[in-house]
């Protein structure tokens, strides 16, 4: 399984990771349409953490023993037994935010339009996650870890 690693010493806090994540998780996959036209508004699943001069980007860590899966009331959050990926089923999510209460990383976001949680899916359809590919400073890298 892939895990995205952030390097705070080279992150310059530009926020392009959030932009490309938003676009990747939009319907149109087009930056102008995603930001100006789409409803519900697509949201980024990676979060730029800033406390100047420190900055780095964090998304779901796909924990081995994921507290969000244990806490989920509806069965929307599951661990894929084969890939190790923490998957979120939007149709089963009831937006109770219990997972948010237990995620140490603050990596689960409230999709206030859909009233459900939004989280990183490691861009399964791409070779490399959008935030990693588009980080101009290579502050985000992918590491292969055992599922």
């Amino acid at each position, binding site marked *: 399984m892939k895990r995205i690693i*952030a390097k*705070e010493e080279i992150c310059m806090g530009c926020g392009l990771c959030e932009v490309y994540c938003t676009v990747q998780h939009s319907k149109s996959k087009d930056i102008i349409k995603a930001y100006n036209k789409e409803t519900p508004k697509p949201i980024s699943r990676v979060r730029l*953490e800033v406390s100047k001069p420190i900055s780095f980007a964090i998304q779901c860590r796909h924990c081995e023993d994921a507290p969000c899966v244990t806490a989920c009331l509806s*069965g929307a959050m599951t661990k894929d037994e084969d890939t190790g990926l923490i998957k979120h089923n939007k149709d089963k999510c*009831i937006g109770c*935010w219990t997972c948010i209460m237990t995620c*140490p990383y*603050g990596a689960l976001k409230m999709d206030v339009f859909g009233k459900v949680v939004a989280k990183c899916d490691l861009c399964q359809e791409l070779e490399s996650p959008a935030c990693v590919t588009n980080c101009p400073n290579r502050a985000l890298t992918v590491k292969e870890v055992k599922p």
Partner: protein
Amino acid sequence: MPKYVIIGASAAGMAAVEAIREVDPIGTIATISEELCPQYSRPMISDFVSGKTTFPKMMCRGDDFWSKKNVQALTGRKATAINFAEKHISLDNGERVVYEKLLIATGGKPFVPKMEGADKDGVFTFTTFSDAKRLVKKLEKSKTIVVIGAGLIGVSVTEALVKRGLKVTLVELQNKILNLLLDNNGSDIIENVMRKAGVTIITGQSVQRIIGKPENDQAVGGVILTKGNQITCDAVIVAIGVVPRTELITGTELKLNRGIIVDNFMRTSVPDVYASGDVAETWDFTINQNRLLPLWPLAVSQGKVSGYNMAGKKTEYAGGTNMSSLKYFGIPVVSIGITNPKDATPFEILVKYGPEENLYKKIVLKDNIVVGIILVNDIERAGTLFHLMKNRVNVKKFKRELISEDFGLAVLPESMRRTMCLGCA
């Protein structure tokens, strides 16, 4: 003979099955459960009543959960006695189930105080899917409802009733709603949004008597409160709380306080017998003692620990605390730990209060360790605060940031940031 037997197949029972199967793919498992439906999420019964969800969506595991996990699921069966010496359980149909390892996960049952008229037609409790189904049937012919108890369940069912267009009066004995989770500021915000939604909230009183309808005394027609005032209604929902279902244990050698006494490996006082969930008294890491904490996510954690230990993978429970995430009337609320200490002297309290935006944040510190959290309407960082709390991180250097809207991982000490960014703590 099943190797593993689990009495109760809700949160803790299901989690135990999953944990056992991780360790032991072949050992036989049997579950005994009174309910007929295969499995579902009890916290979702409010959404069922409001019409937001249907039963298939309430199934919190796959349709084929029991067969996939190769479990002999005895549904609609009640355990009537346990013989710990001979290691077997008697069922209501006269059958006997023998066990090697047993998990008692019988859960809680609604507490209904002695009240004149509580036997009338139209008095409901609200914990199971059958309760919810019966209630929905009644609601089709009802206009006004009285809910007794403004805790998690009471407020949650009130919201469901409001969504169905019913007129609700919520009666709470304490002076504030959600008083086990929030303080006055927090409760005020929720009380205000509830009143705006049309709910009548009566605090500091309880129901003294349930009265009948003029034309039919056996049917609920109203309630009389402790101060004597009368409220007309078509149904009463009692949501005061749950008490552990210990009737199988009472009078046996298994040690019982209010709930079953367990250690941090979920072992009871009897060898090879474990307990988890609402029936057990488990470790609360904020007060350093065991107590009843009837909450779904904690029951899952405990069930998991039980399952691992039953199957031979020694696992210690990390403990829990009173913690809930709510979304009542569109306002997200998180409450964790000691949020409203009676005597504030040993604590340091950080507050940010913006009632006009329904915003409230309160962090309770003791010796620079987070011991309590209330977040209303800005909850996305709740998990990081909880992480600091659970790991007893000294927050002295950044405590002012904790209630700031900019609080996040970047303000944490460098060593913590490094572990978090590099992998998974």
